[in-house]
């Protein structure tokens, strides 16, 4: 912790992803695709082939950004992460089906996702929750959007080109989870405080 941040360019090799460990601070450059609740339900229930071109080798970003119309295109205004645990029932399936490099979100995910990360050689990256303006500035280009009409702005698939997007590895491809560690340590403290 506190050491120099690792630079990661997407699509990344499996070796590069497998080398990352919980606690590593990483600056990501390349394609990330926003997807949250409606998108995950859709990806699992419909398994659309049409998304393969934007998802393979990319990262899914649990984010519902604020976007403003800018001529023919879009301007991204604020784009921090949303809570990932809501996608826990879907994430493992999505990771395997679309061969993602991993996921960016906040709050961490559960054991099913942890097992899928291990199997696929993928990584869960944590962005700072609430840092909407700072993270939007690291988006260099809004490439396209899909399912905007059906899902609305926060839930659509926004295809973003990011540069030096700051994250922390909190679940790695070796089965490690910072969230599990903190949960276990704090569970003991809770027991002590409550005399249970």
């Amino acid at each position, binding site marked *: *912790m506190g050491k120099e941040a690792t630079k990661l360019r997407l699509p990344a090799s499996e070796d590069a992803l497998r080398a990352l460990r919980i606690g590593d*601070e990483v600056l990501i450059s390349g394609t990330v695709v926003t997807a949250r609740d409606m998108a995950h339900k859709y990806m699992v229930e419909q398994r659309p082939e049409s998304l393969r071109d934007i998802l393979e080798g990319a990262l899914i970003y649990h984010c519902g950004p*604020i976007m403003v119309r800018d001529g023919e295109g879009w301007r991204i205004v604020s784009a921090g992460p949303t809570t990932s645990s809501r996608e826990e029932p879907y994430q493992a399936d999505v990771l395997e089906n679309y061969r993602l490099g991993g996921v960016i979100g906040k709050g961490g995910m559960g054991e099913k996702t942890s097992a899928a990360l291990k199997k696929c050689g993928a990584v869960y990256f944590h962005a700072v929750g609430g*840092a909407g*303006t700072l993270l939007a500035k690291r988006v260099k280009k809004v490439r396209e959007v899909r399912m905007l009409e059906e899902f609305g702005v926060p839930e659509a698939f926004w295809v973003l080109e990011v540069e030096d997007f700051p994250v922390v590895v909190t679940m790695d491809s070796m089965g490690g989870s*910072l*969230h599990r560690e903190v949960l276990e340590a*704090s569970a003991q403290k809770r027991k002590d405080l409550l005399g249970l």
Partner: protein
Amino acid sequence: MPGFVEWGLELIRRASSDLSPDVEAVVRRGRDAEPEGTTARNVLDSILQNVEMSRADATPICQDTGLTTFFVHLPAGYDAESVRADLQEAIRLATKEGILRPNSVHPITGKNTGDNVGVDLPHVEFEPATDDAVTIDLLLKGGGSENCGAQYRLPDASIKAGRDLDGVERSVIDAVHKAQGQGCAPGILGVCIGGDRAGSYMGAKKQLLRHLDDVNPDPLLRDMEARLLERCNSMGIGPMGFGGVTTLLGVKVGWMHRHPASFFVSIAYCCWADRRRRLVVRDGVAQVL
């Protein structure tokens, strides 16, 4: 002459992009408390940097601008429905400008209205004013933190909580543990003891309007707030749940009379981005605090 549409828009802009100084000061204290070189400290540095950028650019601190909740105190002679209509218009304009994210989803069809106006949206609570000024408090609270709210019905044997203040504290500690970093820790808690189910939750939310540096006039609750802050922080959950000493920035406790059969403890969890601002209109002059 400007009216509640323009004033409302300015209130929303300030709440969304300009974090209240009392909150920023406590985040900074939390940052200084985390050892150098830790991820916890880096996270709080990023948060402070984001706060400055958002203020400078007048852009939303967080993309989840939440559900808009207004607490309005109206003097006699004002028409509440017309104020509500003006606030709705202010919200439509703010959404178009990108100060608010469209967050109004139909629960059955899944359709987003796209303008943040819908059934009970914005939520507006009207109360009579005690003087001749109009006061409007706005709270923008994101969904992730709202999901971490909790309500306990005492007694609760699973946490050895009886119907007393010790039971209240146990409920709060348990809720903070359950929340981990999910509600964007370090968080701020509004707690309400008593009331019925609905009133108690709203009472907890109203505690979030208090400034972090205020002092509870009830010495018993003042001590409880300080003790809960210290004990919850001792769990080591830390910023974003990465581990650290800053799990909460503040705890605010209030109460309501309860039914003899019911003893509710309600907890409203607010993320570090506690976006609240107050509009005061006196003699036709508006000021956002």
